[in-house]
């Protein structure tokens, strides 16, 4: 054998077919890092719109009553893994606060100033309803509604009111029961309105619809009592609300991006697997060749080292067994209230020379980590074992001085 060792990176291979092999380390780096980077960017792009929509209302409807109080109704996605959700309210003068989850359960709430703590406990969607007196102010005859909305929202103005000023562009406007319903975008909005002396001209294309939210308000005897401010849910005969259309489009976009990201991710993984496999094959070939030249020299030293190590550990093991093995019967007599499954663990530890890794116990008894952890902790509390840390693992040892303690 040739005793000269030639470092692989200084060696150039010229195969029989004349192809020249070059170093693959740099290529390997590039081939693995770039797809990873690309995949992360795709995930970020896909997640961005989802993140922005999470925890902000997916539906937000406001109804202004003639006295300026406002009914807020919103539907919010919440994290089902948390116990509570802190809800930002639009003000502090709140009445009739009701929060229900997706199953219609009334949730426990605690209103503190401008926020409310809702005990969600696994709910994924909550519906919040409350009346608020902070959104509309009045100066002279002019009523001003102002809100910094976290999402797009609909606003139903009181009957006979006329908008006389506003600070931003509405997305849509509909006439429902002779009332203006605006769809507005997120952000700061200020709308001035007054109770008009000039009648509103209703859109002839939109029929007046009965109040859909008051199906059981029985008032057959009183023709003029339908609640003018209550209507909130759009009537099916009225053209579809743009908010829902916008939502659908947004969902479609998010869905599209997600699908694209998944396809992209799958492609990257496939490419990566192929690349890594071929590089790995090449490296294996190269390494075997190198080992051929290197192994002989180091073989003697290696075997010597192994021999001495084996001897050392064997000596320690036999010593441990001699000194630390404790009779399980004695333990059981000292601790008669041990559980049967705990006794099995003790027997196993004892048969293993009085000490065993917790992971070995899990393998032996096919128990999940936490269950075994609890069993071991129980034995530790009973004074049967002690736990030591060994290479980031728990080493469970039978205690030697149990009899003395007794």
């Amino acid at each position, binding site marked *: 054998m040739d005793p000269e060792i030639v470092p692989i990176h200084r060696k150039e291979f010229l195969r029989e077919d004349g192809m020249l092999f070059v170093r693959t380390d740099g290529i390997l780096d590039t081939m693995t890092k770039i797809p990873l980077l690309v995949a992360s960017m795709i995930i970020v*792009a896909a997640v961005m719109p989802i993140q922005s929509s999470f925890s902000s209302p997916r539906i937000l409807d406001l109804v202004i009553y003639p006295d300026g109080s406002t*009914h807020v109704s919103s539907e919010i996605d919440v994290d089902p893994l948390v*116990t509570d959700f802190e809800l930002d309210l639009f003000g502090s003068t709140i009445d*009739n606060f009701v929060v229900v989850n997706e199953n219609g359960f009334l949730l426990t709430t605690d209103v503190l100033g401008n926020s409310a703590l809702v005990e969600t406990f696994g709910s994924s969607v909550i519906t919040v309803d409350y009346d608020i007196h902070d959104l509309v102010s009045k100066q002279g005859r002019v009523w001003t509604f102002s809100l910094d909305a976290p999402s797009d929202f609909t606003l139903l103005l009181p009957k006979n009111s006329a908008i006389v*000023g506003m600070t931003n562009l509405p997305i849509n406007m509909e006439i429902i029961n002779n009332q203006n319903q605006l769809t507005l975008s997120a952000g700061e909005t200020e709308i001035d309105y*007054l109770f008009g*002396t000039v009648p509103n001209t209703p859109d002839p294309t939109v029929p007046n619809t009965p109040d859909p939210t008051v199906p059981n308000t029985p008032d057959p005897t009183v023709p003029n009592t339908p609640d003018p401010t*209550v209507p909130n849910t759009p009537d099916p005969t009225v053209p579809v609300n743009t908010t829902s259309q*916008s939502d659908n*489009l947004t969902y479609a976009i998010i869905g599209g991006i997600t699908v694209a990201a998944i396809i992209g991710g799958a492609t990257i993984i496939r490419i990566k697997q192929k690349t890594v496999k071929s590089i790995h094959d090449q490296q294996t070939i190269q390494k075997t060749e190198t080992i051929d030249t290197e192994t002989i020299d180091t073989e003697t030293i290696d075997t010597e080292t192994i021999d001495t190590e084996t001897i050392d550990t064997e000596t320690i093991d036999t010593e441990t067994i001699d000194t630390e093995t404790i009779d399980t019967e004695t333990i059981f007599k000292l601790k008669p209230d041990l559980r049967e499954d705990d006794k099995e663990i003790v027997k196993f530890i004892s048969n293993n020379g009085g000490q065993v890794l917790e992971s070995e116990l899990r393998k032996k008894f096919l128990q999940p980590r936490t269950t075994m952890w609890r069993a071991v902790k129980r034995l530790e509390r009973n004074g049967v074992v002690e736990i030591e840390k060994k290479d980031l693992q728990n080493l469970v040892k039978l205690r030697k001085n149990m009899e003395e303690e007794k």
Partner: protein
Amino acid sequence: MKILALFTIFVLIFGTTSTSLVSDAYAQKNTNILLDIATQADRQILNQLDRSYGDLVPSDIQILYEKGHAAVKSLESSLPNDVEQAREDFLTAMKSFMEITRMISEPVTETKLATSSDVSDRDLKSELNRLHKYFQSLKTIFQKHNMETDFSEIERLFVLAYEQINSNLIEETTNTFHQLESLIHIKKQEIREYSSNSASARIVEFALNQLEKIQKILEDPSIDTSMPEFEKANSLVVEIETLILEDNISAAKEKFGELNKIMKIIKRSTVE
């Protein structure tokens, strides 16, 4: 690789601009509503000016009105082709009208007096409407859980209250309103009681599910079992289980919050 890079760039650009695209598309689609709102506001302002000043409109207000009115005319002509101009015109008109209304709203005491009775009437009706909406919310909860209860008295009183409002019987309406309030309050108590009973079961179910998930996370081999949080999390799991068995839900809730915080630390350390 080149295709992949192009694809990524496309996804990034599309992902970041999609939200604004949606809003723009809808604003453009409904430009006619801008004209409806502006025209209505223009009419209202003209009417208000006429009522407040007659032919003697102060010059500053007159200038503002002319500016707003011109913007409405411009808006009319710029639609439907020039959407950008239409938006600009709309905002100009509405801001001018907003200024005018704020200027004319203060000195008119006469109008205030004329509408004061209407306002008090409206207040009572608004309150009744709000209460009715609240009642509807509670009623929905009752119906959702098939809870048997009698709403007939409340519904009768609502009918009566609306009748009284229409007949301008303020005192009677107020009395009916108070009766309604107290009856609805009793119903609310009923729901609260029911909810607190069902909440315990819901919380226990949630906690047990979560504990199972947390145990699975703790069994992940990548978790460093030597970290103090691991031990703490495990002991909290045992503690919560015990508290749930003892039906000590409020203490279990508290411990659960603690466990969630620790789990966040453990998850972070796994990612790192």
